[in-house]
């Protein structure tokens, strides 16, 4: 492969020239020297800590003293903790309600927005705006919307109209949906753009042929648009699911004075991990929770890819 001996054939040369490498070797060296930085970065910053978390989850490390191996004690403690199961249910509530609702709204908006010619770009920008806004800033605005009267916008409006007030963030049943609505709204812009790109990518000829054959709109949607949109849908389902499983910003910022909502009713796993690690400094226990989250993310992603796989 490499022929370094070329220069050795001219021993009388006063200064040794650099060994000549073949074009392929040189390009391989170039490629790898550029790739080395991200590879190194991923190994040191991503993979090493990930694997280290598995080890930490078996220890009682608290940042201050040396980590001591305690076997599966952290896991036993976690599964015996009703607070953990509460966050577990909450996390899945965000996932199971949030993902389909997001997907449906994003598709409907994209489907109709695709046909609108009037102020198309303006409308698209309007939908996209929440996505580029800082989650924390949005969460605080919504937090004030949701307040009881006299500060809360929604409740004040209800009061003006003569309705009773609704407890949003202060209620154990309404707090989670109230936060989920804002998370769905915030993610919508991105999903709409992706769906629209997917819709545009479907060749017009299919639609023309279908119309010539006299198919109705509903049939076209079901038989042509949705099947051809599948790669986009698969991508979005995985993307949205992961986002909901990792929900944190909205919850953290909307319930700072009672983190995780009244009686933990809105607390997702990530917030629990954050509190265990950076408020209680119980790193070993936090690592065990992280391993559980990692497993859930892995299983959910693989399951979705398998269910939505291309059978063709």
């Amino acid at each position: 492969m490499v022929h370094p001996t070329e220069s050795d054939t001219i021993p009388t040369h006063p200064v040794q020239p650099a060994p000549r490498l073949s074009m392929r070797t040189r390009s391989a060296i170039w490629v790898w020297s550029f790739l080395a930085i991200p590879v190194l970065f991923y190994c040191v910053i991503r993979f090493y800590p990930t694997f280290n978390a598995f080890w930490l989850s078996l220890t009682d490390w608290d940042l201050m003293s040396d980590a001591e191996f305690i076997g599966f004690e952290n896991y036993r403690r976690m599964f015996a903790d009703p607070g953990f199961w509460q966050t577990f249910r909450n996390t899945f509530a965000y996932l199971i309600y949030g993902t389909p609702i997001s997907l449906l709204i994003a598709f409907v908006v994209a489907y109709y927005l695709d046909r609108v010619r009037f102020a198309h770009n303006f409308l698209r920008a309007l939908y996209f705006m929440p996505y580029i806004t800082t989650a924390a800033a949005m969460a605080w605005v919504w937090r004030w919307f949701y307040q009881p009267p006299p500060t809360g916008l929604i409740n004040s409006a209800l009061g003006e109209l003569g309705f009773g007030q609704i407890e949003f963030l202060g209620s154990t049943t309404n707090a989670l949906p109230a936060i989920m609505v804002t998370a769905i709204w915030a993610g919508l812009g991105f999903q709409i753009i992706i769906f629209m790109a997917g819709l545009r990518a479907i060749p017009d000829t299919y639609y023309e042929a279908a119309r010539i054959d006299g198919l109705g709109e509903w049939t076209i949607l079901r038989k042509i648009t949705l099947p051809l949109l599948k790669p986009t849908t698969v991508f979005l389902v995985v993307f949205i699911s992961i986002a909901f499983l990792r929900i944190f910003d909205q919850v953290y910022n909307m319930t700072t004075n009672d983190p995780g909502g009244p009686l933990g009713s809105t607390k997702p796993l990530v917030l629990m991990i954050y509190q265990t690690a950076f408020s209680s400094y119980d790193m070993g226990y936090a690592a065990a929770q992280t391993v559980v989250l990692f497993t859930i993310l892995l299983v959910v992603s693989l399951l979705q890819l398998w269910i939505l796989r291309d059978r063709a």
Partner: protein
Amino acid sequence: MQKRILMAGISAAACITAATSASAVEIEYWQYIYDTRVEAMDQLIENFEEANPDITVKQVTFPYADYQTRIVAANMARKGPDVMQLFYGWADKFIEGNLIQPLPEDTFPAAQIEEEFFPIVSAMKRDGEYYGLPTAVRSLALFWNKDLFEEAGIDGPPETLDELVEYGKELAVKNDAGNFETVGLTLDMAGQDHQWWREVLVRQMGGVPYNDDYSQVTYDDDAAGAEALEFYTNLQTEHGIGAAGFMDEGQAAFRAGRAAMTIDGTFRLGSFNSIEDFEWGVAELPANEEGVQSNYASYFANAIGSSAEGEELEASIKFLEYISSDEAMQIWLEVVGELPARRDAAMTDANMNDPIYGPFLAALPYAHTTLFVDEAAQRQTAIDMANRVFLQGQSPADSVAEAAEQEQAIIDDARD
């Protein structure tokens, strides 16, 4: 030739380094970012450096949310501060993690500390040794909106719990839809109410919240815990004096002039001082029928980092001595508005007669300091305890029992 010049250069450089390190020592002081605290410390450092020209103190600050993590991380890298500020509640963790070292007995004799400081400094004492001393302390008081009191025709702040309820009912205003316009007293467990319940109300109902070393929860040993919680939740459910979550935070409601009374700490003075729309006053927390008073006091102590040794340790001791002096405390009171930790510096006539500082200072001799192992987690048990009554209709007795069990588990976990 070249080599000789190089050697000369190296030895010259070595001499300079040696000379500077002999004549001046630099120590690092760490605290979290809070404008007035940083400003006060700048002043103290300036005074200290003037008196000790051979010592330089470098102040390093971090946002509060990162502060603990930074200290721990720096300590792991053996780059911890020489002198640092820490919340008294972190003491156990910091001692166990070998982040701080005990104060030398010859400069800071325990007996002298106990004589000169308020009793709450004992929260920094472990096995007879002190691990830190505060410059300033904080306590709780009742803030009252003088304008709203005048409108309601009430002369002054309540002195007893019965008066608190009676006045609160008169001061609360609801609109036609049944929503609060103004609350009589703010209910905010996430604020200072959990301290009020723990160290004040439980004791006023005849109980004791914890055993002496705070290793055992005792507020559920008798009916006192449940009675205290019932008194608290009744303020909302029975008497309609206030509502948890009104205006998001109690202090926000008071600031906006929509709360006639709120219980808060010295640290709130800075924020309330900018209120221009109404007059407000400060009063001692109401006593119970038998006149029993209590309060919760807390503080940030200054401690010496475990990595300080040799001349840096000596300089650190000198610096700590200065920032725990009467002079430093007076500067801190003027700039930050926190109370002096020494009796002599605090209980001056001028301070005691001050309408704002007076009530806070009066509480210090009878105040208690909860030894938290994980303040955020323990606060959460109190928040949940109240919420179970407010939102799920659980009986106060059951809720207190559940809270006691949860809090005991947190304490046991941290102590084993």
